């Protein structure tokens, strides 16, 4: 049982070289699928265990922390790990047909290897208890995602990937500088150890600078406004599977890293009270919500539209953290979960459309309601969740976020959050109108509905959007538990 903590990462990680050795598309897909589902199962068991028995610590190499590296899974990590693995498991089901169509045949095995490396890297970030090890996992997932994004068919995938590489590497280097400064002041890299030793030295300029560099570095990875410029193009031009997977997981893991460093390692007292991060996050979150939503309204490429919407959604999460209250942080963590459900569903559905029709601009989307009824219906439901219409998961997120702002009397913020929802209504509805009110393009060939291997994951996520809009024992329960642990009852 204990070993699951390491296997959840090692299995997908080591499946990547296996894929390369197999070098055939079908076996590589199968390997990825099995690895992803194994990790998902492991993540479920781990989360059950840590939520019942408390954090699980696993010393790698048998060296106890802080001398060795340890994995440390607590409810927060387990929760995000569950999101990552669940999305991976579904995306792998979806991937088979989509990848065969979008990726040159002789590179499919390596493509799956890259996908697995992205996945393993993200999973590793959520379980590791060592700050530097987090950096290593971050780089594994980042490098693999640069490659995966660049496999998009449009040449802009290349420039988008390069842009992401530069900004991502700057971010990672900032994180490295930040970790270095913390290490300089404490002599340790272990997160728990850091959290214990930092308060003694927290009143130093070095720690403050380290804090700033870590936050900015994570902000870059998180695509926190105004550091989000890499995201829209990367998501818009990456292959469908990659977009769906990254959109549903990568920024979530960055939010996790932000929570872990800001609230746990530095502590609420330091981060949000001694440093003015709370107000900064609220402010940037709001700007992200408004600018992301506004720009999304004017997009014609649907993947770009949803990518800008992601910028806005990240704003919601960051805003929640910035509220620095139990409710706010609950909302942020909850939205990490719910946003993964909605964006996963939406991007996968768009991938299914792309699989049948080719491109996914508003023009191609005309008449889609008749051409691909099930896929389009999934997009509509996912869109409703994005807007926050009850009874979808998005509604629950909005509820807690608005509750968090109202608790602190931030009326204007609450209204702007809801205004963001209305902007979402506008861009989602542009899509709905195109799908149901415009006739299909005259030259449109008759197409069959997307294959079952695509519809099943899409609708699983759609169903999850509704389920977690009604029954929130798990999603809200865990989120609020984590928030209590992080912020403390008083906040």
């Amino acid at each position, binding site marked *: 049982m204990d070993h699951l903590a390491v296997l959840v990462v090692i299995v997908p990680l080591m499946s990547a070289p296996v894929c390369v050795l197999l070098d055939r598309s079908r076996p590589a897909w199968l390997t990825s699928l099995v690895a992803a589902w194994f990790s998902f199962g492991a993540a479920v068991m781990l989360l059950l265990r840590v939520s019942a028995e408390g954090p699980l610590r696993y010393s790698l190499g048998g060296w106890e922390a802080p001398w060795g590296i340890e994995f440390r899974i607590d409810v927060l990590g387990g929760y995000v790990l569950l999101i990552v693995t669940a999305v991976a498991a579904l995306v792998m089901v979806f991937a088979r047909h989509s990848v065969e169509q979008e990726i040159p045949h002789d590179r499919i095995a390596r493509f799956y290897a890259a996908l697995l490396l992205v996945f393993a890297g993200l999973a590793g970030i959520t379980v590791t208890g060592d700050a530097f090890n987090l950096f290593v996992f971050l780089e594994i997932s980042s490098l693999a995602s640069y490659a995966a994004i660049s496999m998009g068919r449009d040449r802009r995938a290349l420039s988008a990937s390069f842009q992401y590489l530069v900004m991502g590497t700057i971010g990672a280097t900032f994180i490295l500088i930040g970790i270095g400064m913390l290490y300089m002041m404490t002599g340790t890299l272990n997160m728990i150890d850091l959290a214990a030793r930092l308060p003694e030295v927290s009143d130093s300029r070095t720690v403050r600078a380290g804090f700033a560099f870590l936050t900015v570095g994570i902000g870059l990875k998180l695509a926190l406004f105004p550091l989000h410029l890499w995201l829209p193009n990367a998501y818009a031009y990456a292959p469908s599977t990659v977009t769906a997977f990254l959109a549903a997981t990568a920024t979530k893991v960055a939010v996790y890293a932000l929570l872990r460093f800001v609230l746990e390692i530095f502590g609420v007292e330091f981060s949000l009270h001694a440093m003015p991060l709370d107000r900064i996050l609220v402010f940037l979150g709001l700007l992200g919500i408004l600018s992301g939503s506004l720009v999304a309204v004017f997009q014609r490429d649907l993947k770009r539209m949803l990518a800008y919407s992601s910028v806005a959604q990240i704003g919601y999460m960051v805003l929640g953290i910035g509220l620095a209250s139990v409710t706010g942080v609950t909302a942020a963590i909850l939205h990490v979960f719910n946003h993964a459900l909605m964006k996963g569903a939406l991007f996968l559905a768009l991938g299914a459309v792309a699989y049948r029709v080719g491109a996914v601009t508003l023009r191609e989307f005309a008449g889609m309601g008749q051409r691909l009824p099930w896929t389009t219906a999934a997009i509509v439901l996912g869109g409703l969740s994005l807007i926050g*219409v009850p009874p979808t998961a998005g509604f629950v997120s909005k509820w807690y976020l608005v509750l968090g702002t109202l608790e602190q009397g931030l009326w204007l913020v609450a209204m702007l959050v809801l205004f963001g929802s209305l902007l979402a209504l506008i861009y989602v509805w542009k899509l709905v*109108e195109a799908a*149901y009110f415009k006739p299909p393009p005259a030259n449109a060939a008759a197409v069959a509905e997307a294959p079952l291997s695509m519809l099943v994951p899409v609708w699983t996520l759609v169903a999850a959007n509704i389920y977690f809009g009604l029954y*929130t024992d798990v999603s809200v329960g865990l989120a609020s538990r984590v928030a209590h642990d992080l912020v403390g009852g008083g906040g």
Partner: protein
Amino acid sequence: MTGELQLLLILLVPMLGALAVLAASPLPNVREGVSFVIGILLFLLVASLAADLSWDAPPTLVLAEPIQGLQLVLTPEPLGVLFALIASLLWPITTIYAMGYMRDHHEVNQTRFFTAFAVSIGSAMGIAMAGNMLTLFVFYEILSVATYPLVTHRGSVEAKRAGRLYLGLLMATSIGFMLPAMIWTWHLTGTLTFTPGGIFGPEVSSGVLSLLLLLFVLGTGKAALMPFHRWLPAAMVAPTPVSALLHAVAVVKAGVFTVLKVAVYLFGIDTLASIAAADVLMVLAGFTILMASVIALRKDNLKARLAYSTISQLSYIVLGAMLGVAAGAVGAGMHIAMHAFGKITLFFCAGAILVTAHKSRVSELNGIGRRMPWTMAAFAVGAVSMIGAPPVAGFISKWYLLMGSLDASHWFAVGVIVVSTALNTAYFMPIVYAAFFKPEDAPAISGQDDHDHPDHGEASWPMRGALMLTATLAILVFFFPGVPLALVQQMAGL
């Protein structure tokens, strides 16, 4: 059958019915048969629930718990039962009417129509039985989304525009105003359960209460209070059965029902009397009543005139709710019921005229009463009900509203009711007069309409049957108002 099971069935029957309709899509007769049978079944269920109910210990059905500590829960209370009774009674009748209308009018996508119809009724049931504000809100939003395909049924550019306005206004108000009001209330009181007498303690300042009341009432876009009324006339592009559903059965009724629920069960009638915003809203309602009536007077399109009439009639209910006296609430509750019978009759008539005679303007109706006597007789009944004269349903509710206004010594309200009655008469009676007493115009100028039907007779039987049935009901409740009155008085605590 336990009360919980009844509640569950009331929600499930229309929802599963929607699936059955979808499944029966290739067989129109079966499909519509299913719709009708489900409608009857639903009415019987609601009626049996109402008959078995004990107000002291109503059954409670918990559906889910989306917010920690805040459940989706169904609990019947008198006003909700009344709303459910009316909606479930009028639904099968509308279904009969729709069968005739949709076929005679050669509408497409009928399966989608009947499916969305069933989902809408299911949502209306959810609204009616909601045990707390969250539940109401959830079904309120589902209703908005489910009626969207009905409003945009034609798929034309105009329909799309109307749909945009419809959904945009309803969503903007509900997300922008009602949702924050709800969350704030939850933050202040820790509950959203509908409780007789209200949930706000004395610690909540009256300024906050004022703001909340404004947010709640303005957030209820479905109540079509000015300036958030534009969606209603725009939605007239939809087929007539949809208009009937929107105006009489589900949508606007859900709106004013929400206002009344908020007034009675969240704020409490007594608290309401002390809130400044109630007076503001009353003035707004009064303004809406008069303004909409004036606009109705100037509309030549029959359905548009009916739409503005609805806007005006809805504000009676808001007015009654805001009076802050029990009689006002009774009047408001009664008006939900009474207006439904009259207005549905009017819409059925308008649709019948459109389908049969291909006429949609008031100015074209001269002498039509001779060709369509039953239809226009029913129209006359509906019109009298709108005016509020005996012996038709509308009289009763207007009576209570007037009593309430006098009770509260609200002379403004009294004045509004009196003036608006005059206005109602002014825009309805000429139609009735023209239909029966003016000579028929020469056949319309050629080319105006492709299918001119100079020799049309009465509407087809499903339509005629439906509209006569509702007209009869409108008269019957005047003489036997016992059930609705008892329910409403129970609500008002009288």
